[in-house]
């Protein structure tokens, strides 16, 4: 049930937001707020950090300690904050350009370390703010302002990337499947370790228009048809699997969390010092 007090998490004097009418970024941002609420995080002890791009603007609307950093570096800033004070809850908001291209290195290494940060990637398959250049998640063949003859690049499956790099919680859903998205983010926050939630979303302004995909509703219908629950997806034919993608919880495993390991190391070396000294 929705919390009637949900407005306390917004900086209401900063709204309405800058995103286009019908933009999925608002849906995902709302989902993050509800997930923070459902997970029961202390508002005072929660830090939301973003990079650059349309997604980068989200923290400005959220009433926490918030940091709008440089392009691609949100996870690196968050890593410093979390290391310095492991009691803080860290939420990182990134995009497909911000997190999978310019910030891809920080993403894979945050996964590898299993540091307790929840990352939500707003994946709209395009650089929206700079007006529609292709990103690492733009489908091959799609048109973009920097792919006027069709994109020849191969697409990243960012959830697969996060799983391969060692993230211990990975989920994917869409702006259409908002309830599932809220649950995935909630459980990602509760998970002790690095959690990555790919929030697939529609950019009708920069991606949809260029590729004749219609408006927000048409693009959300496409998500509904093409993102399939993990179990149902497994039963699809090989040909269908080429086109359709999984949604839901993709990975959950236990592995010692990075700042816990470091705190244990501090204890160990301090005890050793006392013994020797």
């Amino acid at each position, binding site marked *: *049930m*929705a919390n*009637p007090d*949900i*407005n306390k998490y*917004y900086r*209401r004097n900063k*709204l*309405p*937001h800058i*995103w*286009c*009418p*019908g*933009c*999925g*970024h*608002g*849906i995902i941002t*709302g*989902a993050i707020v*509800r997930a923070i609420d459902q997970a029961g995080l202390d508002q005072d002890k929660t830090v939301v950090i973003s990079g650059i791009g349309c997604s980068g603007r989200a923290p400005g609307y959220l009433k926490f300690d918030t940091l709008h950093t440089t392009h691609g570096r949100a996870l690196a800033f968050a890593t410093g904050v979390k290391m310095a004070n492991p009691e803080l809850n860290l939420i990182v908001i990134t995009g497909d350009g911000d997190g999978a291209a310019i910030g891809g290195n920080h993403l894979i290494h945050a996964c590898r370390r299993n540091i307790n940060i929840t990352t939500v990637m707003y994946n709209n398959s395009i650089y929206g703010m700079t007006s529609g250049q292709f990103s690492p998640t733009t489908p091959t063949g799609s048109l973009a302002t920097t792919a006027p003859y069709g994109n020849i690049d191969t697409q990243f499956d960012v959830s697969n990337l996060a799983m391969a790099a060692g993230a211990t919680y990975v989920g994917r859903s869409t702006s259409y499947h*908002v*309830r599932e998205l*809220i649950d995935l983010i909630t459980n990602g926050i509760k998970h002790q370790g690095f959690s990555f939630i790919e929030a697939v979303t529609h950019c009708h302004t920069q991606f949809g228009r260029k590729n004749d995909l219609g408006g*927000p*509703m048409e693009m*959300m219908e496409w998500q509904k048809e093409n993102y399939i629950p993990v179990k149902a997806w497994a039963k699809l034919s090989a040909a269908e699997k080429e086109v359709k993608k999984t949604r839901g919880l993709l990975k959950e495993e236990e592995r010692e969390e990075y700042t816990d390991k470091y705190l244990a190391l501090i204890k160990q070396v301090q005890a050793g010092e006392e013994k020797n000294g």
Partner: protein
Amino acid sequence: MPNKKVEIDAPDWCKGCGICIYRCPVDVLELKEGKIAITKPDNCIGCEMCELICPDFVLKVVEK
């Protein structure tokens, strides 16, 4: 009877995208001059989809 109903919490933020209308499983909402309006409140089943899907945090489903 459902014990919840939709309300327009922040009418000024509505950008008139219509996503709430598209996702409403019954027939409650309409766009009036580019802004959302609750035209058939009695139809509301209190499912909260409109609140969750609204990209502009305009709608709220509250206790009756």
